[in-house]
């Protein structure tokens, strides 16, 4: 059978390139998260003035995962759109790999938040807008993943989930405003007071390190997943069967 080398060029190169950079992302992730956590545990005051207790330290994980979960959703939609517009297989694979890391980090955000809630409010869960928004973000991630895994045909599953992502892109802001501002007469005053300003600069440094660490972790896992997807989808092509790691 004639092999169209050009057709696979993109994936072949990407596969090799990703394989080379993944270790660096892992190293960076481990270093950054370690620094962040070390900072959080040992370089920040034991108890803060306004009565916070030791458990505030979970914020180093909580906030990083919260930010990355939201950012990864945007990345996922972006890749899906690129796939729909240019019909490039690689970007569909990126979207699919991103969705899983994104969903995981959403779960981490919810779990750390819940633990924090149990210690500070005495209840695991409350129907606060911020938390609710995140729960719904999780549902949307899950919907995307569920649709993708329900379809066997890769062509169809790529395109169908991309359409879903596109619909999500249009609807997520609407959902966000509905959850945060159920009464439209008061929507003009809708600006989530980011309590970021209240966070001590000292703590903030730790948070920035862990967030960057999560970012590197996301890169690493997403690239690994894409490599797996490539292998799986092109397992019958010549170039894959020549790979060392397959044989």
């Amino acid at each position, binding site marked *: 059978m004639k092999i169209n080398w050009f057709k696979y060029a993109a994936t072949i190169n990407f596969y090799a390139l990703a394989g080379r950079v993944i270790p660096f992302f892992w190293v960076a992730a481990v270093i950054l998260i370690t620094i962040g956590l070390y900072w959080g545990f040992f370089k920040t005051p034991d108890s803060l003035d306004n009565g916070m207790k030791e458990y505030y330290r979970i914020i180093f994980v909580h906030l990083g995962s919260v930010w990355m979960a939201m950012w990864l959703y945007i990345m996922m939609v972006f890749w899906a759109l690129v796939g729909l517009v240019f019909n490039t297989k690689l970007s569909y694979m990126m979207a699919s790999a991103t969705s899983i890391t994104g969903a995981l980090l959403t779960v981490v955000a919810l779990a750390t938040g819940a633990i924090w809630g149990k210690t500070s409010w005495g209840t695991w869960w409350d129907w606060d807008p911020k938390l609710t928004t995140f729960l719904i973000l999780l549902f949307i991630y899950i919907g995307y993943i569920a649709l993708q895994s*329900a*379809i066997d045909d890769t062509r*169809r599953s790529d395109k169908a989930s991309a*359409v879903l992502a596109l619909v999500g892109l249009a609807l997520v802001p609407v959902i966000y405003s509905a959850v945060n501002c*159920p009464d439209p007469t008061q929507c003009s005053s809708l600006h989530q007071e980011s309590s970021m300003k209240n966070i001590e600069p000292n703590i903030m440094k730790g948070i920035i390190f862990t967030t960057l660490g999560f970012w590197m972790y996301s890169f690493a896992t997403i690239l690994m997943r894409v490599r797996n997807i490539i292998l799986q989808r092109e397992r019958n092509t010549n170039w894959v069967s020549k790979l060392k790691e397959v044989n």
Partner: protein
Amino acid sequence: MLSAFWLVLKRDLLLALRRRSEIFTVLFFFLVVISLFPLGVGTEDKTLKQIAPGVVWIAALLASTLALERLFSSDYVDGTLEQLALAPQSMSVMVLAKMVAHWLLTGLPLVLISPLVGLFYHLPSHSIGVMMMVLLIGTPILSMIGAIGAALTLGLRGGGVLVSLLVLPFYLPVMVYGSGAIATSMQQGLSLQPYFMVLGAFALLAIVFSPLATAAALRISLE
């Protein structure tokens, strides 16, 4: 183009008339959900009034979801959908016709029966009017968003549950503003206009975009 719209609409209504059961299933389900809460919650007047707006909308959401799976799947299984896709007409027009039929068969009956909810939950007559109005604007949005999900999941195992999983989070804004309007109507002196504006805007957006998205999704599913 218009002729294709009428053609599909008429056929779907005719099919439903041949098989009246579906309409009744949706209505029954709506009523079961509505009547279960007073049984569980107790019949205190204040509590009933408080939960009524939410319950109506949730019942409408769930009832609409229940009927979604059948929107395209029977046409898919017997090959009619292929023929729709091959007809020399714009697919989104025909899809719109199917959405309209779906709404006439599942949304409209809910609007018409909703005064019964007012009765069960001791709502003031003013609020009953508001409830019917918001349902009238909101249920078509449900049908239209739902159609996208139904098209995406065509022919997949676990279709019914999967569709609901995809679609229910997207229904949220309609529910929030829809039930918000009913709740507000029970308080004195508050304007309902903002609610209707928001819902109206949603409806307009849905009419413009959902037939296109659904038609695209159907073509993908047919490959």
